[in-house]
């Protein structure tokens, strides 16, 4: 190490002379106070080094990836693949299989995303499609070692025959220990995104030790990193995490606090939830003892009582109190409301809507529904409030719906006030035969009517319908569409997830 830098690291101590950098810049700074002179010389030396930087030469020839033997994707297909990256492992696996059959390799730009796939089945399907470039990359990154080996299966048969069943590549040896080492390395050395992925994976295999790893670095991370990493505890969340989450609740950063709150609210037995219930319970006690259930509910939600339980807002300004109320309500188990007030969710909603606090109460309940995955509450709120909920609230509710509830709602009366597309996308494909038939019927009726907003919304679901409809009903889908003003787009056929993804489809896109 350079003497000048060494002096800085050790400290100038009681030495009398200020160290020299050994360059002409020393002369620029006249001797003054010892430490000050040293710092100013350091500044001049730093600029001198930056301005005079000569990069080292690296003579060894660069490692070049071999040329691809497979076909490249068209820009349009590349775009479709980029979109599909948000999809689940099922979609990624289907992509791998279809690309292999079509003799295509994944676009180079998207390789890192596909190589980060963690699902074993999806990895096996992708391995032949990563191409020469993918294998070359995988040899340089140990986390991607699963793709580095050329699969032992001959691909010729499959390429020629248009076969439906695509061979699985050989599994990497002993995936469990392999994966654990990889994840630990990724956690230590990765970027934030990789560390989050590693933390999720470690939580899956050993939740306690994964949390300990996070605790170990907790005080050294910046606020936004702490918030992002903490959110990963949602994987395998259990009461064991409570102590640590309570600590995070006292964090200085607002973001960290709100992540901790969100997680604690998912632990019904936590002290945090108990505190929230206690504050809510205070409301009920304020109600007249002999009052009927209705009066109890109304006075329970009355403005005066609420003021007592909602803490003075941290930030001043209108709406702060309402936000605090919404947060409180979001943290309380939904079952608490029905049992405490001895009322059905419908009655509670009616009572809430009769007060000035309707909006924050509904907002809080919506969040609680999403956290607690309460399908019955979700269906009730969607049905009753289709006109007034904000789009993001509707999405929160839809996520809590069970597939049965989604089908039930859509069968009853599809309303354009609902996020129909998201609801359909939530159903596992292929759909049950009876629902598929009902839904087609609904589309058929829509296509026959003069177009209005709902018709357009319904016709926009033809893509999804084509992807998820049981194969037995496809004939009828074509009939339904032929009647209507709209035709199924090519992309619907192209993005089909199922077994009949033949080379022809992909080929026409390429």
């Amino acid at each position, binding site marked *: *190490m350079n003497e*000048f*830098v*060494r002096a*800085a*690291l*050790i*400290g*100038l*101590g009681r030495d009398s002379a200020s160290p020299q950098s050994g360059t002409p810049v020393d002369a620029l700074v006249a001797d003054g*106070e010892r*430490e*000050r002179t*040293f*710092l*100013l*010389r*350091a*500044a001049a*030396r*730093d*600029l001198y*080094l*930056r*301005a*005079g*930087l000569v*990069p*080292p*030469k*690296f*003579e060894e020839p*660069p*490692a*070049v*990836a071999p040329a691809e033997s497979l076909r490249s994707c068209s820009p349009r297909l590349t*775009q479709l693949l980029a*979109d599909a990256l*948000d999809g689940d492992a099922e979609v990624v696996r289907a992509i791998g299989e279809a690309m292999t059959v079509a003799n295509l390799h994944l676009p*180079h*730009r998207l*390789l*890192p995303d596909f190589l980060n796939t963690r699902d074993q089945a999806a990895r096996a399907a992708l391995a032949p499609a990563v191409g020469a*470039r993918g294998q070359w*990359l995988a040899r*340089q990154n140990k986390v991607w070692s699963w793709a580095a080996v050329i699969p032992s299966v001959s691909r010729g048969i499959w390429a020629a025959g248009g076969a439906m069943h695509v061979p699985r590549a050989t599994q990497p040896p002993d995936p469990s220990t392999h994966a654990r080492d990889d994840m630990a390395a990724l956690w230590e050395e*990765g*970027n934030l*995104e990789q560390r989050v992925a590693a933390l999720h994976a470690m939580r899956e295999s050993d939740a306690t030790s994964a949390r300990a790893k996070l605790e170990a670095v907790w*005080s*050294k991370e*910046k606020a*936004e990193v702490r918030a992002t990493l903490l959110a990963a505890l949602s994987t395998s969340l259990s009461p064991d995490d409570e102590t640590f989450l309570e600590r995070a609740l006292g964090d200085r950063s*607002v973001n960290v606090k709100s992540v901790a709150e969100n997680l604690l609210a998912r632990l019904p037995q936590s002290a945090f939830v108990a505190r929230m219930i206690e504050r809510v319970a205070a409301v009920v006690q304020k109600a007249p003892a002999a009052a009927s259930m209705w009066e109890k509910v109304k006075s329970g939600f009355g403005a005066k009582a609420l003021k007592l339980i909602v803490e003075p807002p941290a930030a001043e300004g209108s709406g702060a109190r309402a936000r605090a109320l919404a947060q409180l309500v979001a943290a309380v188990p939904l079952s608490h409301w029905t049992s405490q007030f001895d009322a059905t969710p419908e009655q509670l909603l009616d009572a809430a809507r009769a007060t000035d606090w309707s909006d924050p109460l509904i907002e809080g309940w919506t969040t609680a529904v999403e956290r607690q995955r309460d399908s019955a509450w979700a269906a009730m709120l969607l049905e009753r409030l289709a006109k007034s909920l904000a789009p993001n609230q509707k999405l929160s509710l839809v996520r809590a719906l069970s597939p049965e509830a989604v089908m039930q709602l859509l069968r009853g009366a599809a309303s354009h*006030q609902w996020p129909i*597309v998201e609801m359909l996308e939530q159903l596992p494909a292929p759909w049950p035969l009876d629902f598929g038939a009902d839904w087609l019927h609904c589309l058929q009726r829509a296509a026959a009517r003069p177009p209005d*907003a709902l018709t*357009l*919304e319904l*016709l926009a679901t033809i893509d999804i319908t084509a992807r998820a409809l049981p194969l037995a009903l496809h004939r009828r889908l074509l009939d339904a569409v032929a009647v209507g003003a709209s035709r199924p787009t090519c992309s619907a056929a192209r993005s089909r997830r199922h077994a009949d993804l033949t080379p022809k489809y992909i080929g026409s896109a390429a």
Partner: protein
Amino acid sequence: MSYTTEQVIAAAPDAQVAAAGKKLADAKHWLNLGRDAEALWGECQGSAVYQVRVALADLTSKCSCPSRKFPCKHGLGLLLLAAQSPARVAEGTQPEWVASWLAKRGETAVRKATPAEKKVDAAAQAKRAATRHERVLAGLDALDRWMNDLVRNGLAELETKGPALWEREGARLVDAQAPALASRLRAIANLPGSPNWGERVLGELGRIALLTHAYRRIEQLDAPIAADVRTAIGWTLTEEEVRAHGDTVADEWLILGSAIEEDDRVRLQRTWLVGLRSNRTALVLQFAAGAASNFAEVLLPGTSIDADLTFWPSAQPQRALITARRSNRSTTELRAHATFASMLDAMATIFSAQPWLRHAGVAIENVVPMIDARGEWSVRDRDDAVLPLAGRDHWRLLALSGGAPIGIAAEWDGVALAPLGGSTA
């Protein structure tokens, strides 16, 4: 159309809006579509009919829907539709609701450019500035004592101390009304522990010492470098002041790339531009509060804008304000250095003119990214010269290159290149 689908998607505020926008990029959702040299417009049939208009000069959109996201899915959908199937959007005459919006935008732009004379109490302002100057000086005295203590006791112990040390000292500087210096100091917290950190921390501390030295004798400095010293301390200029004092350059500006920094509340975007005629480099800083809000100016890498840029006064003018924006087009032109030697020559000039600059945007062609056995990234040019890459994840760059030369846009901070993007030939 003068933009691509990818570029439009890049401008979406989040993935949800991007996906919704893609769904709307189909003529079946639209009525009364049209365009002319200035704008695109159409009515989108959703749960209500929304009037959507896009100004082609800067791709800003305006929609009658209540969405708070910007651009909303309707604006995005219209841009995508026009990019994918231009034939569906025929030439036409602007309806009244488009013309009136464009006219109003024009007025706002003019009003911004010629602000109403505000009554300024010059005496009170000068007094406030003098008070602040005194507070800054007191803060710098305390900082200098602290830095002297640091080098007397040695920097080695910094490796085991956390970021709290720097946070505390930064907070003191914020109290002393020197916010820019505070954030410069806080940024050092990330260095200890990284390769060669002693050298880098010492360099940073040295440059801060140089800054406190310069601020104390600011009256003796030339006006441009004095402006830099004030900026580095944290004195700011309003946009009006920049318009009044900065020099304005009209040019075709190629957009090299953008870097985004996020903290608890604010996102900061640095976009680097190069003037195709003037060859000047410009930096446009944009701030957005919260995750939902978007940056006001849409600047897509790989396009160029015909615009007036007004530069902040400086010995090495870099930061600029877009004062007039006329049109946007896709371009394949590049202003790239052929070798690192040429790039470093240019950098030496820049950093010696303004020692407190943190980074400079550059483009270099024919370089090969590499990763070594220890996971350190670097990039080599056609003369086999090697420079380090900042950060630990450049796999996309490596995937794109496959060991073959590519062009990259990057920020150079004097030590390493932080890539903003890459392109194959």
